[in-house]
């Protein structure tokens, strides 16, 4: 046992303390005696992995076995977030496949980077021969180390679309696509299990909608949200691979509607981490949530601290998403959220019906770590700090009354789901001062190796 050379720079008393490393199945127990455990629904213990790294080798791929949920469907869409190890453009050594589902030589759907022209191709084969449609990006150069989010879709409308980072780069409403292949595994990161034309880089998530057009077809708002890291609604997501398992030997769990269809990592795939390697509470942003038992104390002066790995840009979206929702009733709560028609983070505090809402509009990038600290002083002030800095403040005359339930990733009615990954959450006795917040944030940043510039 080593000696503790550094301590918290000032005394702190925790009312609640939740450490994701202790998640036990569907429970996140409290690390505070008398605290309130969280019960996970859909949410799970994962890691801060950035995704899966692919090498392009024959054993670098993820296989999702063919099944009825993905075969012979009239509509299909896939969103992939990826970055490359080396810049890709015309003259690259070989094509790099991101995805393919292939049954026969002329019966496939596929997404790949083409070395002849540097473009991204979204193609479907026609079982009668020839290509049913071919869409290509206007982007012809892909920068090493830069994340891209692509969305490729088809319906029997017919509508075929190709978007890069939310921008439509090609579409086709003339060619009528055939249904998805009635067999053949879905391959992520390569053309096939054994192909040597796979991606050389990292994929951080894959979201697939497949089914009837009326059910899974994306609307423009879905496409916009996907480019921000915000998933589509439940019914439109049959496969969702968040790729945050972070453990050699682990499969890639499907968090979407098709349920059990896990992806199997081949041997050359590895998990990519940054400087921070920790267990976290992972939520899919579709229908996962993690409420506590009743009895959380948010009365008087208190501070809510949440450390997250941002999984969306918090930009204006179709719906609210909750980060921390400490709820007694409609007249008494503390809410840390991203809200419809507002880009950024909002802190709302309601005490005995007296509400104060303050907002912060600087957006994170996906994968940014953030330390949010909301301080509440009874009948006085509410403050929101981000990464140690006071970003917004307001006066407030409210007094919170009653015992609360803590919700992470959802509103108390089972809505407004969020997909940020939680590394740490606590409620501290008393409202921290600005200096305390700064010191505490620096300390958390150092201890967790978050790499935030504070």
């Amino acid at each position, binding site marked *: 046992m080593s000696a503790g050379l550094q301590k918290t720079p000032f005394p*702190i008393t925790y009312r609640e303390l939740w450490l994701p490393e202790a998640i036990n199945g569907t429970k996140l*127990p409290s690390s*505070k*005696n008398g605290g309130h455990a969280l019960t996970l629904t859909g949410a799970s213990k994962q890691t801060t992995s950035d995704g899966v790294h692919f090498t392009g080798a024959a054993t670098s791929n993820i296989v999702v076995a063919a099944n009825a949920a993905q075969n012979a469907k009239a509509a299909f869409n896939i969103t992939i977030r990826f970055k490359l190890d080396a810049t890709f453009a015309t003259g690259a050594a070989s094509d790099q496949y991101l995805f393919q589902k292939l049954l026969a030589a002329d019966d496939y759907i596929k997404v790949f980077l083409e070395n002849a022209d540097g473009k991204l191709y979204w193609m479907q084969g026609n079982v009668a021969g020839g290509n049913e449609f071919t869409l290509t990006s206007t982007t012809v150069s892909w920068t090493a180390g830069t994340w891209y989010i692509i969305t490729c879709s088809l319906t029997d409308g017919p509508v075929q679309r190709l978007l890069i980072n939310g921008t439509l780069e090609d579409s086709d409403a003339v060619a009528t696509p055939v249904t998805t292949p009635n067999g053949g595994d879905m391959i992520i990161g390569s053309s096939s299990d054994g192909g040597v034309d796979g991606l050389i880089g990292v994929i951080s998530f894959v979201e697939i909608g497949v089914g009837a057009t009326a059910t899974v077809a994306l609307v423009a708002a879905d496409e916009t949200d996907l480019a921000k890291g915000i998933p589509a609604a439940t019914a439109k997501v049959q496969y969702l691979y968040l790729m945050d398992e972070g453990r050699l030997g682990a499969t890639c769990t499907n968090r979407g509607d098709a349920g059990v269809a896990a992806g199997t990592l081949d041997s050359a795939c590895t998990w990519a981490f940054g400087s921070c390697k920790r267990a976290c509470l992972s939520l899919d942003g579709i229908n996962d949530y993690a409420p506590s038992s009743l009895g959380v104390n948010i009365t008087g002066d208190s501070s809510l601290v949440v450390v997250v790995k941002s999984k969306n840009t918090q930009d204006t979206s179709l719906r609210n998403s909750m980060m921390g929702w400490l709820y007694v009733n409609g007249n008494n709560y503390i809410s840390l959220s991203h809200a419809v028609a507002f880009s950024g983070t909002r802190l709302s505090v309601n005490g005995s019906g007296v509400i104060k809402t303050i907002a912060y509009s600087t957006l994170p990038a996906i994968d940014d770590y953030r330390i949010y600290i909301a301080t509440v002083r009874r009948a006085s002030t509410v403050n929101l700090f981000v990464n140690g800095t006071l970003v917004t403040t307001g006066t407030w005359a409210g007094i919170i009354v009653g015992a609360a339930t803590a919700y992470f990733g959802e509103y108390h009615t089972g809505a407004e789901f969020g997909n940020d990954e939680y590394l740490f959450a606590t409620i501290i006795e008393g409202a921290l001062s600005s200096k305390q917040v700064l010191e505490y944030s620096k300390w958390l940043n150092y201890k967790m190796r978050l790499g935030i510039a504070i």
Partner: protein
Amino acid sequence: MGVNDTALLEYNKRDIGFANDKLDGQLVLTTLFAASTVVPATPAVLTLFALDATGGSVKDVKFAFWLNDEIAATYTVSVFKTSADDLVTFVQDFVKTWTIALPGFDGVYSFEAGDLEEGLQIEIRVWKDSAGTNAIRGTLTYLG
């Protein structure tokens, strides 16, 4: 400040120290609490605690639990771990298996589960050999 206040203050200092030291990233004590629940009859198994060492090795995992005396039965406590060559499959560490015969009274039982190397996971599982309701609650501590 009364006696009770002083005791509470001292308790809080200790509690704060544990939590803070944990966040410090050094090998100091952290505690988990498992609320009261029912011990199932075999073949059902209760996983009382789980711990993940993804962020770095933890040492000296200890746990204790309280059993009430409502059911006379043979209780088994077992430590399951993943291993370096298989990071996702839990296997029983038989050395750390104990049988508790007939608690007979409200009992506190303490065990040691050793170290948990970086990247591994551990689960503490409990079951008994006969049906019937009885309660268990516990704490787990580790240096991590």
